[in-house]
């Protein structure tokens, strides 16, 4: 069966510090991978979308970047965090070309102080 892991679960970082959030998927190959951000009490905003190694689509201009160094690894990064980067970050995967359900990780709660 497929599983998706995210870490860390919570993170408190000072403004201006770097960020690296990691997401890995097990039990499947060639998945689509997604990074979302969820502000408190709000819906999900798609940040990045990847259909393969090294292939990243950025959905909104922002202070963040994403990379996919391996087929089942997706990394969200920032060189210098802003206060507005605080939020709940969710990684998800879906089978390729199915237009179907996405499977979500447990999320990372990021607080930038």
């Amino acid at each position, binding site marked *: 069966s497929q599983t998706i892991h995210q870490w860390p679960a919570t993170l408190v970082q000072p403004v201006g510090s770097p960020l690296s959030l990691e997401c890995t998927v097990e039990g499947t190959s060639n998945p689509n991978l997604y990074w979302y951000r969820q502000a408190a009490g709000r*819906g999900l905003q*798609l940040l990045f979308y990847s259909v393969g190694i090294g292939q990243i689509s950025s959905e909104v201009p922002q202070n963040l970047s994403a990379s996919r160094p391996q087929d089942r690894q997706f990394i969200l990064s920032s060189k210098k965090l802003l206060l507005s980067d605080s939020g709940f970050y969710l990684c998800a995967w*879906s089978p390729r070309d*199915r237009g179907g359900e996405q499977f979500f990780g447990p*999320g990372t709660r990021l607080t930038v102080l």
Partner: protein
Amino acid sequence: SQQGEEDPQALSIQEGENATMNCSYKTSINNLQWYRQNSGRGLVHLILIRSNEREKHSGRLRVTLDTSKKSSSLLITASRAADTASYFCATSGWGTDKLIFGTGTRLQVFP
């Protein structure tokens, strides 16, 4: 931008009652999905309805889709305290695997 708008934003009911949540969207879709999120957790897929379907059931869940009105509803029958969560609709367009999520409905079911 978020395409889906959900109504109501919050809903409080007693156990045993039915809960109805509505979702509206703006453009043509391939399918519409409903997800559940417990507080501080990831989302869990509940049900998917395709654009050529009008109604779908899964256990105590009933989803309807009206493509002419660009709207969907999720009905949870005989609700339980464990149904307390936020519920999101998400639409998938043609030729894409990306989803656009609504703003969500927070459901509180009191024992």
